[in-house]
């Protein structure tokens, strides 16, 4: 059964004349990890917010069609009801911080308190999330006395602690150091193996290719393509949509190196090595 169902979703911000999301229909199964790509302004963040109900409940504006996330219809559910099923890490970690908590620990606890998680379980989940993001040693630090990357780590920890059924990540690791970013992606991959459904908006195409099973290409609020990474990244017209494929694909395309019998170019390091070996 599909975990997310979107039917003819249209959305326009109140201050805008044009549709930010223009007639989107698709389904996502449990345990999938979907990468959303597209140029700046394509509609990635708007779509992310449509899964958690901020579109339309917070932003208002004109809304048509239907979004159903793990059985709840977004339009008919409140943001707090939805928060029990769907968690989001915002594009800018500074917007995620509540601004009302004195320590990193309280900040991570905030969402759990709202969900009414029992005390003992709360402590376990916070400890787990802080440790996963390498933030234990900053647990007593004021949230605004962190470096940018540490703040982003705290934002991710806050959402992972909620253990949502659906995890929405909007450029979650843009300020993380390279190893920290890779660790987050590995952790998300493990959560996915345990059944979590993941939606990821991201400009890092190498990460998308490595971790997502399907990729949605957006442009002007419309779905241009929704298929496997290999298929989307092999499109010859990708740059027309403001997107450049992973470096592995670019090199293989330049050398016209494909896997035997495959219509697509490699998208990961391993695949590229396989076809380029011996050169």
């Amino acid at each position, binding site marked *: 059964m599909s975990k997310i169902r979107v039917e003819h979703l249209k959305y326009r911000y109140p*201050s805008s004349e044009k549709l930010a999301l223009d007639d989107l229909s698709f389904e996502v199964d449990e345990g999938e990890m979907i990468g959303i790509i*597209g*140029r*700046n*302004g394509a509609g990635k*963040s708007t779509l992310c917010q449509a899964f958690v109900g901020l579109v339309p409940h917070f932003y208002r504006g004109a809304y048509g069609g239907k979004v159903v996330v793990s059985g709840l219809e977004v339009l008919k559910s409140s943001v707090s009801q939805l928060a029990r099923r769907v968690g989001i890490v915002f*594009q*800018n970690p*500074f917007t995620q911080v509540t601004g009302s908590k004195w320590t990193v620990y309280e900040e991570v606890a905030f969402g759990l308190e709202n969900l009414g998680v029992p005390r003992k379980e709360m402590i376990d989940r916070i400890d787990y999330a802080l440790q996963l993001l390498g933030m234990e040693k900053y647990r007593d630090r004021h949230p605004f*006395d*962190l*470096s*940018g*990357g*540490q703040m982003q*780590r705290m934002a991710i920890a806050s959402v992972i602690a909620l253990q949502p059924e659906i995890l929405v990540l909007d*450029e979650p690791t*843009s*300020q*993380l*150091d*390279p*190893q*920290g*970013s*890779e660790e987050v992606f590995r952790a998300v991959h493990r959560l996915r193996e345990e059944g979590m459904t993941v939606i990821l908006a991201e*400009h890092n195409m*190498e990460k998308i290719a490595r971790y997502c099973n399907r990729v949605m290409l957006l442009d002007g609020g419309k779905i241009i393509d929704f298929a496997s990474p290999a298929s989307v990244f092999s499109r010859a017209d990708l*740059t027309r949509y*403001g*997107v*450049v494929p*992973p*470096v*592995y694909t*670019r*090199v293989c395309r*330049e*050398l016209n190196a494909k896997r035997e019998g495959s219509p697509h170019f490699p998208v990961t*390091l391993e695949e*590229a*090595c396989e076809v*380029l*070996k011996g*050169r």
Partner: protein
Amino acid sequence: MSRVVVKDVCFSYRSGEEVLKGITLDFDEKSTAIIGQNGAGKTTFVKLLKGLLKPTRGEIYILGRSANEMTAAALAPFIGLVFQNPNDQIFRSTVLEEVMFGPLNIGEDPKGARKKAEEALEMVGLTEKASENPHDLRLSEKKLVCVASIVAMEPEILILDEPTIAQDHAGMAAIRQVIRRFKEQGKLVMGILHDMDFAAENFERVVVFHQGTVVADDDPREVFSRESLLQRAGLEVPHITRLGWSLGRKETFLTEAELIQSLRGEGSTDR
């Protein structure tokens, strides 16, 4: 000639927790990428250069002037810093006013300031947003407004704290263009980056920060050859470097063009 001299600089936000532990560096006009783990002290370091923080020990000279004795305002005409978080930088009600503020503030007349602001906005591709409220823009656009604001001041030294955050391919190209322009004018550009590919392709020198110290300082090819050091510092080699090595090449490739040339068997230096 030295543009920036840093002598044994230490800094702590709170006593007993030293964030920078004796940094000594000398910058000429060579464009420099600063890379390192979250919390390594990169942002703190450039805030010290900009005069926003004062060292607890050591000295900093900007174009021969002692930064310890100057206010951030007095340093503003010489050194521009694009903040990591654009919300810390933006405070005017239109994009054009925001970008004009810097030049006006350092004594430019309104006509000149407007011209410089418009040129800077054009360079980052935001001409059409000039009359919008910068607070309503998306993160990627806010970041470019911040870049334009500093570019419009034409400082001798330009520092970009994670400029590529949230940028798509076109945004990356705009930032590349800004860096190139400053280089052509013989000005010093420093960039703090978590994108190793971008660092490898666009800078002539790479400085690695680790827990408040400098653990490597060399040209990019040299630094990105040192895998175990990068590993220890929370970093990775660029994707193209990794691909080259995985294909058995000994060299450290920094660009696609270099690797493709080698794979085509043209001018390979492999033995």
